[in-house]
């Protein structure tokens, strides 16, 4: 099995809504791939996430997760394989303390306590929150709470982590904290990541970026392919990496710049060649 998630002609319309939130979305995500979904608010991003682990049931179409078709019978098996980190750090913290919260998902599966203790300790270690295990959520920063949420997911040893705008309510420090953690986790183990985000840095870390617009896939490609569209992204209500913005500022001043996307390092090097050949 190489596909972690297969979405086949998925449509979803909310009850009472006239317009579908998702219209005929087809998407395959490979095992170990990091896919970022970007799109303005109301583009259907979060609806897509909720259709993947059965929090919402597709109006039509089929979702397959780790080879299991999403059905009534499979739903709990699928939820054990897919962890979601939600937007609001406070409202997904179930446990009274950090360790309790990490254990919540394990308790739900009736795991014996000895094994739970090992898993909780290990998960907290991985998100670097061991020192906080008996802390109450009120005494944690937003970034720390999201790290605990991630610990709660990796304790369940999932195949897939969905970040549903998980960094949007955090300050820049918290955002970086979460992003670096995901990168570090992926270095240590094979983990499929689906991040739904507005954060351009988060999208830039992905292997593939998908633009969702009005419930349909508008574009799909590597971050470089997507970011090279520059001004077009802004029209879609999205952000552009700074390097791309600077490139366009130079182009508008009459400088010849390469058409393909340059990340910051690439741009610095390119400008340096211009500078040194002057």
């Amino acid at each position, binding site marked *: 099995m190489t596909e972690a998630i297969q979405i086949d002609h998925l449509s979803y319309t909310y009850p009472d809504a006239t317009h579908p939130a998702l219209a005929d979305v087809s998407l395959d995500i490979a095992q170990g791939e990091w896919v970022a979904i970007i799109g*303005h*608010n*109301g583009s259907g991003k979060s609806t897509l996430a909720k259709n993947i682990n059965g929090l919402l049931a597709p109006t039509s179409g089929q979702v397959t997760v780790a080879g299991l078709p999403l059905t009534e019978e499979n739903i709990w098996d699928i939820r054990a394989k897919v962890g979601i980190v939600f*937007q609001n750090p406070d409202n997904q913290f179930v446990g009274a303390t950090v360790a309790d919260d990490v254990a919540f998902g394990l308790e739900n599966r009736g795991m014996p306590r000895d094994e739970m203790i090992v898993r909780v300790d290990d998960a907290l270690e991985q998100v670097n929150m061991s020192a906080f295990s008996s802390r109450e959520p009120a005494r944690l*920063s*937003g970034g720390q709470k999201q790290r605990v949420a991630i610990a709660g997911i990796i304790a369940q040893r999932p195949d897939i982590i969905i970040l549903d705008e998980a960094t*949007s*309510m955090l*300050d*820049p*420090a*918290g955002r970086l904290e979460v992003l670096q953690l995901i990168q570090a986790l992926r270095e240590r183990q094979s983990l499929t990541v689906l991040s739904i985000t*507005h954060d*351009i840095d988060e999208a830039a870390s992905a292997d593939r970026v998908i633009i969702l617009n009005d419930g349909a896939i508008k574009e799909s490609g590597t971050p470089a392919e997507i970011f090279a569209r520059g001004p077009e992204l802004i029209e879609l*209500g*999205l*952000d552009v990496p*700074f*390097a791309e*913005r*600077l490139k366009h*500022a*130079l182009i*508008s*001043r*009459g*400088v*010849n710049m390469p058409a393909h996307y340059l990340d*910051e390092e690439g*741009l*610095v090097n390119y*400008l*340096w060649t*211009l*500078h*040194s*050949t*002057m």
Partner: protein
Amino acid sequence: MDITFDHVSFTYQAGTPFAGEGLRDVSTTISDHSYTAIIGHTGSGKSTLLQHLNALLKPTSGSVTIGDRVITAETNNKNLKPLRQKVGMVFQFAENQLFEQTVAKDIAFGPKNFGASDDEAAALAKQMVTLVGLPEEVLTQSPFDLSGGQMRRVAIAGVLAMQPQVLVLDEPTAGLDPAGRRDMMTMFERLHETQGLTIVLVTHQMDDVADFADHVLVMDQGALIKEGSPREIFADPDWLRAHQLGLPKATAMAEQLMAKGFRFDPLPLTSDELADQLLPQIGGAHHE
């Protein structure tokens, strides 16, 4: 209307075992018609400082002068209304303050508390809803039927309807998408330019500081550790890093370029400034 802090200190729950320091000896002036940004990492005292701007908190020692009112520890809680009317506050996630059955009523709530008649308040509601870029149809709708971004605009309209002279914004774009963020910041800029509103902005977005503010206050552990124009504040990247603060993206990029032998004077704050200064260093416009 100036707001002046004179040696203001504030202690949370003073006199209890849970006392904690909020502000330490802060002295500064937020002058009339300025666009002041307050920066500092989470827990640096920014929010405590904000709540002194309209006497939601009173200094434990020192005094805050807001227009012609002097607020000290002894100030009575009565008669603060005229002052609250002059300093409008948009809190973080301001949509949480909505409660009325219709948008019109919610926007009219503030003005009516400050003595406006029903007709005046209704007229203000109509005017403000347009000012924040919402269609007039929403006036009769329930605020809870709107999208998150629209709700935030209604909340802001509710504060603007009080016709304040100072508009205080606590991370007004938190949680919005990029387009929403851009629209929101442009709207505040317009209010600053056309209505002459004094703006106080608390933010983590250094690009917004560089783009909009003319004065910056840097807070750390309850103290005001630096103030000046954005150019003065961002002129010392090492100092900012030492205080866990970021740089505008253009400034950060300029630093990387400087490591490769480029020179900038002054350090650019925006992509346009950076591009302008780069131009002569990469052989100008007609490079092949």
